[in-house]
């Protein structure tokens, strides 16, 4: 299992590549990746924005992340360990789901609607929190994200609960829960 972080040294931010690497090394076995699985984290330090995407699902998996996604909002231009685990763990769960034949076949990330993307994120972060990777009030934060995309309704909250507590959901389960919640709000 090899984790590489680029750039090796940062000039615009005070990130420690070794710390980011150690976060990923903690996440990989916890999420269930086998030995021999390699990950490359490519950090764009030129922007404080916070987008993070998987650009390759092959081995090595490549994650491109803007520096704001890994940053401590209380200490600008420094890494937040729990925040990094939250962002990278969510994406690594997405990788694991895609590599699991029993999960189903979600469309490419670029074709995912915001609703489905947020629903999948809830499922991922729920599992991540149960593994012990907590970052502030993840549950309420994700509930707020989910409500913004699926409506502020009881049906949305029920769907959220299923996603948040789920462990063996399939892609079809996620689509079904998201669609039902959104239909009530429409």
């Amino acid at each position, binding site marked *: 299992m090899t984790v590489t972080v680029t750039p090796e040294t940062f000039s*615009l931010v005070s990130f420690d590549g070794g710390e980011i690497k150690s976060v990923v090394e903690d996440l990989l076995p916890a999420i269930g990746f086998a030995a021999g699985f390699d990950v490359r984290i490519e950090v764009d330090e030129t*922007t404080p*924005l916070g*987008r993070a995407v998987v650009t390759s699902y092959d081995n090595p998996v490549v994650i491109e992340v803007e520096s704001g996604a890994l940053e401590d909002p*209380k200490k600008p231009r420094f890494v937040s360990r729990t925040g990094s685990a939250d962002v990278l763990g969510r994406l690594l769960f997405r990788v694991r789901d895609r590599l699991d034949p029993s999960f189903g076949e979600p469309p490419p990330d670029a074709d995912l609607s915001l609703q489905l*993307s947020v629903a999948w994120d809830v499922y991922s972060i729920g599992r991540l929190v149960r593994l012990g990777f907590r970052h*502030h*009030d993840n549950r309420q*934060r994700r509930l707020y994200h989910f409500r913004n995309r699926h*409506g502020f309704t009881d049906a949305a909250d029920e769907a959220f609960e299923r996603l948040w507590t789920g462990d063996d959901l399939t892609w079809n389960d996620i689509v079904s829960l998201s669609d039902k919640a959104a239909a009530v709000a429409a």
Partner: protein
Amino acid sequence: MRKIFPADLLARDERFTRLTTEQRFNDPRSAGGRAGSRGVTKLTPARPDASDAARNLMHGIFVGEVQALEGAGRTCWDFETGNGPDDTPFALKLDMARQCWDEARHTEISCKLMDWMGTELGEFSESTFLYEAACNPDPVLRLTGVNRALEGLAIDVFNTMKEFGDVAGDPVLEFCEDWMLADEVTHVKMGSDWLRRLTEHDKDRRERALEFQRVVDKLFSLGGFRGEDDDSPIRLARRFRELAGFDEAEMDDLAEISREAKADAVRMRERLAAQANA
């Protein structure tokens, strides 16, 4: 009790993390980044990062309310009551006391909204430049800096958040922001009224006060954060500002100040980036 209380002595518990103005502005990164094709846009639910951007802004509103409470409270205390040139009329202090009551209520509302949105108190840093603007030794400058510039910004922020709640279908956010917005219009109107009354026979003082307001407005445009361009997350709320005593020329001036602040910020980031890469 001492008068003119410095910002670094404000009472905060261990949950709060203070960020200096230098730390906030000395960031060489630019929103567009190396791709250059994606910047910040208006805060609407259509933005993929909308929920987190709103959560972050809500925390900024919360610390702003705390500091507005502290600033209005200081204005009740820092000046002698009277009608002399260095005094503060009792009626002005009464307005500030009423504002304290409003800001305390806003602080509580903001705490509950943060719970609602999944934001922990202290999850983000606090800058105290709102309170610092409330430390001006001239009560007229203090009122223009705080009530007209900063509470004016609050009008823009609350209006943007109210629209966000409306479009997202969030009844709690929309309702709360609408009520706080109504109070902010009153606070700005107080600033406009007292500026006119206290400088009626002193044009130099009025000009100094308006110049101070322009300085604070530029500082709080935060590199184009508030303005009328497509990439301004917070939009100038012209209708509500009109209700609060701003005329068209002042609002045009404010839009221009925001563009200048954005251009200044770009130049500053380029300089800092060049230094970092040297």
